[in-house]
C-alpha cells in the first residue's frame, strides 16, 4: 500500500485498555490506521474486538491508554467524532417500531441532517441495499440478510468518512456475503476507511489491507494477510484424515515431512511448501490416509500457529 504512508492517520490507539471489574477485555493494545485503509481485527469470540469497536465509537469508556479518531478523543468529543462515523454493530439493532424507510430517515435525523437531504438519500440507500420494494415494510418482516443490508445502509446515511463494521457478514448466506463485499469495495474506492472485525478468514483475506490478530485482549500479530501467512505459515497445507482414533498415532509416522505438523481432533495438518510432494512422501512411507487435501495456507493457519486454537470453536 504505497499510497497509504503519506495519508493522515485516522485512528491512533495507544495502550488502549478496557477492564470490567477483574476481567481485562482489551489489554493495552496499540495500533494506527491510515486514511483509506481497510483494517481488520481478527480473533475468536471474546477476544475484545467488539469492545475495541465500542471504544472507537465513544460509547464505551476506556479504562486506560489514549485514543484519537480523526484527531479527537471520542470520549471527550463523542458527538463530533460520531458525526463522521458509520457503525454496523454486531447485532442488527434496527428500530423495530419504525418502518424500513423511516429507519433510515429517523437515524439520519439523529445526525441533525435535514429532511431535504435525507429523503433522496434514503431512497438511494434503499436501492444500494436492494430494499426499495420493502420501503414500507416492518423491520420484523425482513429476512436476516435484508436486516443486515438495512443496517449497513443505515450506517451510510451520514456519508461517513470512517465505517466500523462488527462481524458484518455473520449469519449471511454466501451470495449475500458477496453482495456485501462488493458494496464495501465500492466504499473503499471512494476513500472511506473501513475498520472491521471478523472471525472469517476468507473475509479478512478478501477485505483487509492490513489486520491485527487479537486473542484474549492482546495483539498477537500485525500485517497484511499475505505477509502474516508468509511469516507464520507455509505456502501450502496438507490435510490428512486417518480416522478419529488414529490421527495422533499417525502424527509420529508422518514426523519429518513438511516443516511442521499440527494435530487436530479430526485431522492432521502438515505444513509444507509443496503439499503434493509431502503427500507423495507420506505414500512412500506406506501410510494411507482415509482422505487427503492440499490447500493454500490461510489466516486460520496463522491463528492456529499463534494461539494453538482454532478461530471458530
Amino acid at each position, binding site marked *: 500500500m504505497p499510497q497509504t504512508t503519506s*495519508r493522515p492517520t485516522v485512528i491512533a490507539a495507544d495502550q488502549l485498555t478496557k477492564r470490567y471489574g477483574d476481567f481485562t477485555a482489551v489489554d493495552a493494545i496499540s495500533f494506527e490506521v491510515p*486514511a483509506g485503509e481497510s483494517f481488520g481485527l481478527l480473533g475468536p469470540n471474546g477476544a475484545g474486538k467488539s469492545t475495541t469497536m465500542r471504544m472507537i465509537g465513544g460509547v464505551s*469508556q476506556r479504562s486506560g491508554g489514549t485514543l484519537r479518531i480523526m484527531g*479527537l478523543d471520542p470520549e471527550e468529543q463523542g458527538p463530533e467524532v460520531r458525526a463522521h462515523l458509520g457503525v454496523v454493530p454486531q447485532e442488527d*439493532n434496527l*428500530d423495530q*417500531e419504525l*418502518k424500513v424507510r423511516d429507519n433510515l430517515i429517523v437515524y439520519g435525523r*439523529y445526525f441533525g441532517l435535514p429532511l431535504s437531504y435525507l429523503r433522496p438519500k434514503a431512497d438511494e440507500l434503499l436501492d444500494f441495499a436492494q430494499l426499495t420494494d420493502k420501503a414500507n415494510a416492518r423491520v420484523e418482516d425482513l429476512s436476516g440478510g435484508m436486516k443486515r443490508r438495512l443496517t449497513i445502509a443505515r450506517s451510510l446515511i451520514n456519508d461517513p468518512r470512517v465505517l466500523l463494521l462488527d462481524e458484518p457478514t455473520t449469519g449471511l448466506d454466501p451470495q449475500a456475503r458477496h453482495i456485501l463485499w462488493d458494496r464495501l469495495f465500492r466504499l473503499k474506492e471512494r476513500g472511506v476507511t473501513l475498520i472491521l472485525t471478523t472471525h472469517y478468514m476468507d473475509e479478512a483475506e478478501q477485505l483487509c489491507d492490513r489486520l491485527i490478530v487479537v486473542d484474549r485482549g492482546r495483539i498477537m500479530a500485525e500485517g497484511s494477510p499475505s505477509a502474516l501467512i508468509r511469516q507464520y505459515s507455509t505456502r501450502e497445507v496438507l490435510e490428512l484424515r486417518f480416522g478419529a482414533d488414529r490421527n495422533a498415532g499417525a502424527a509420529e509416522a508422518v514426523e519429518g515431512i513438511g516443516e511442521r505438523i499440527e494435530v487436530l481432533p479430526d485431522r492432521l495438518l502438515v505444513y509444507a511448501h509443496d503439499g503434493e510432494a509431502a503427500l507423495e512422501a507420506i505414500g512412500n512411507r506406506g501410510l494411507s490416509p482415509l482422505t487427503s487435501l492440499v490447500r493454500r495456507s490461510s489466516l486460520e493457519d496463522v491463528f492456529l500457529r499463534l494461539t494453538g486454537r482454532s478461530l471458530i470453536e
Partner: protein
Amino acid sequence: MSLVRDADLQLTADRRPFASLYSRNVRAVIVRGLVATKTSNAAIMISGFVEPVLYLLSMGIGLGALIGTVQGPDGTEISYAAYIAPALLTVSAMNGALYDSTMNVFFKMNYAKLYQNMLYTSLGPLDVALGEIFLALLRGFLYATGFTIVMAAMGLITTWWALLMVPAAVLIAFGFASIGMGITSYIRTFQQLDWVTFIMLPMFLFSATFYPLSVYPEPIQWLIQALPLWHGVELLRQLSVGSFGVMTAVHLLYYVLMVIVGMTLTTRRLRALFLK
C-alpha cells in the same frame, strides 16, 4: 457519495460545555418517539388514559354513592368524586412518568437497544435523556388534558382555576421522570425495578388520595408529608377548587426542587446510564 479527502479527516473539537454529552438535537429523539407512536404504539397510549378514568368511575361514582360529600380544601362540602379526582390525576401523572423513566428506559436500553443505536450517531446521552423526558411529559400533558375534560363532563369542575391542574400535572410528571431516570442509572436487573413499584403502590394508597391526612396519627402524617405524592395530591386538589394558600407555594416548590435534584442526578449519571 463524494470522495473522502485528507482535509476531511482532521476534525476540530467542539468547545461548547457538555460537548461530550450533548449535541443540541433533542428534537430528533422526540421525532423518533412520535413516529414510533404513530407506527406501533397508539393502542398503548390510549390505555394510559383509560386507567384513571376507570378509577374515577368506580370509586367516585360507586364508593361516592355510599360516602356522599366530604370537606374540600377550602372547607366547603364537595362530592367524593370531586375529592378524589385531582388525586387520581396526580397518581396517573406519577405512574406515567415513573413508568416511562424507569421500565421503559431500562427496556429500551438493555433489550430493544434503541439507545445503543442513537448513541452511535452524533446524539449525546443528554440529548437522549432530555428527549425521553420530553416525550414522557407530552404524554402526561395529553392524559391530564383528557382527564380534566372527563372531570368537566362529569360535572366535577366548578372553577376555571381547575385548568391549572394540567400544567401542574406536567410539573409533577417532570419531578418524577427526572428522579426516575436517575434511579434507572443504578439499576442492573429487571428484578430491581420491582422496588420502584414497591414504593409507588403504598404512596398511591396512603398519600391522602382517598381520605384526608387527618385520619393518621401525627408521626405517620409527617412521613406522608415528606413524600412527593402527597404534595402533588394537595396541589391539584387546591387547584381543582381554586383555593390557594401558603401551602400551595410549598407544594410547587417541592416539585421544582425535585426537578432540579432529579435533573442534576440524571445528568451526572448519564455516563453510567448510557456509556458502559
